């Protein structure tokens, strides 16, 4: 009963040093840098994002010391605009992802808990949301309520909620059929404890992966909407808006479009890498 049952590897496992994969470290560093830039945008940016330098219009990167990443067609500093765009895009993407995940998961758990009528209503909403082209919904909402940043974030939050709702509902139902949820229920636990302490942590890995998939989508969606003039309105700027307006100068001044595009690619990739790693870390059986 004592020493035999415990292989040495298991005993050491508890104190085993965590080796961090290089890619994860790089992703963390990049996201940290992006967050830092977003928070400190006012201090880091060399110019205001609306400041014009008409003598140096469409300057290439490195052409003058004044504008390391070049300028756009109005002579605005690309680096400064990039910094403020990162702040705006991260705010929108994180905000919308979190809103979508919260709404979707909450509705999915409610559907699975109550079943019956509540479940039918939620599932009808899910089907409705999934079958409605999001662009039309966005157009309608922005046309009726006008455009404001808060509204825009909430709107993007509605983009992927039905996915979380479906996943959460399915996982909660299957968790309820498994022993551990039934066991905790018959201990006399309240639904709050059953879902909060047992079911949600057990299904969190799938939801986190789905969040990391939705995050890049929302950045791209924001870019698309901004490009259509529905998203972030000039003079405000975002990564998507920069790509959208830079498109016209693609052949003559590709740096206007390339620098925000590179930031989008690296950020979404980092979120994916980090999400995947987080999923494994949250599962004690995979240590």
């Amino acid at each position: 009963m004592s020493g035999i049952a415990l292989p040495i590897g298991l005993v050491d496992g508890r104190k085993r040093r965590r080796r961090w994969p290089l890619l994860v470290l790089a992703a963390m560093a990049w996201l940290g840098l992006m967050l830092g830039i977003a928070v400190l945008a006012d201090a880091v940016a060399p110019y205001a994002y609306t400041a014009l330098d008409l003598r140096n219009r469409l300057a290439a990167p490195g052409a003058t010391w004044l504008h390391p990443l070049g300028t756009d067609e109005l002579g605005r500093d690309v680096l400064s605009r990039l910094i403020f765009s990162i702040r705006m895009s991260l705010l929108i993407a994180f905000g919308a992802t979190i809103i979508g995940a919260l709404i979707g998961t909450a509705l999915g758990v409610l559907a699975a808990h109550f079943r019956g009528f509540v479940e039918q209503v939620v599932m009808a909403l899910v089907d409705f949301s999934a079958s409605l082209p999001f662009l039309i919904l966005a157009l309608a909402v922005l046309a009726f309520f006008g455009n404001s940043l808060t509204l825009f974030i909430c709107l993007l939050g509605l983009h992927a909620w039905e996915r979380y709702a479906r996943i959460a509902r399915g996982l909660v139902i299957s968790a309820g059929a498994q022993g551990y949820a039934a066991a905790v229920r018959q201990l006399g636990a309240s639904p709050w404890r059953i879902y909060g302490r047992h079911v949600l942590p057990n299904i969190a890995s799938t939801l986190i992966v789905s969040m990391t998939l939705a995050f890049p989508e929302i950045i791209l969606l924001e870019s698309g909407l901004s490009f259509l003039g529905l998203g972030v309105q000039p003079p405000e700027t975002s990564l998507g808006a920069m790509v959208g307006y830079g498109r016209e100068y693609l052949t003559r001044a590709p740096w206007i479009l390339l620098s925000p595009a590179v930031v989008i690619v690296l950020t979404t990739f980092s979120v994916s890498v980090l999400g995947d790693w987080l999923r494994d870390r949250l599962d004690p059986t995979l240590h």
Partner: protein
Amino acid sequence: MRKAPLLEAMGLTRRYAMRRGFLGRPVEVRAVDGVSLTLERGRTLGLVGESGCGKSTTGRLVLGLEMPDAGSVAFEGQPMPAPGTPPWRAMRARMQMVFQDPLGALDRRMAIGAQIAEPLEIHGIGARRAERMERVAALLRDVGLRPDQAVRYPHELSGGQRQRAVLARALATDPALLVCDEPISALDVSIQAQVMNLLVELQSRLGTAILFVSHDLRAVRQVSHRVAVMYLGRIVEEGEPDAVLHDPAHPYAQALVSAIPHPGRGQRRILLQGDPPNPADRPSGCAFHPRCPVAVAICAKEDPMLKPRPGDGRRVACHVAQGEVPAPSVGRSAAGLNRPAQISKAA
């Protein structure tokens, strides 16, 4: 005045609707059909029968995890509240369940110490965290685990250790009733004996009443004070384990008991004829009569009642064993129905 028994179930019935095929009409399945049982404090009732006979459903009904369609459960003289209500939840501290699959019954993301502490947190036992941790350590020692194993996750424990952890969690609130639903069938034979010995030892120390649901007759005999044999949702025989499992009165119980292999003894097994029962299509009269080796005409028509047998007072539901009709075999008295008519010699 006699004190009310710890647990008294009267005429429990549980029906399920089952649909055959894609467009089939729903068929009513009576998983449990009029089961009554009583359990005194500190005693063990063994519930045996083949799979699908309603043993586990009876266990769930008795715990109040499901509502019976008919009948009632009284625990310590109080009627069972509806599942999920606050009084029902409060009652969980007094009655607990031990599951068949210990790995499934534990949350694999939580260390077992935290899981054993959960019933204490839920029912507000132990004001401070240190107090609860002390109780967890004591519980772990009680079930034969080391207190330092509290930090382990379920997948780091062996099957027997997991079942001990489940047992520790069930005992955390010091319940008066423990329903063990096939607690040993997922374990190795050597571990089974350990867990059963542990159950007996804990019962003698804590005075917990146990409803022991199992298909393992020898396990039931080892731990039980009374045994009830179920067939197709009904109790067909009930009595002392030595009496029921040595000298069964009901033909079904006889067939069950004869299936226990005995080394060195003549391998005289009763092979049941016919198909296993289908609860959706219950035979008329005695549900066992199509497979019964001693069935007579009345068995197909009249449902036998579970009542004490005239000779020795053992409760059995069988026309033949009750002596109401003569056994069809050659001049054998029904009360001494030890060897039924058709005994096949197994190879």
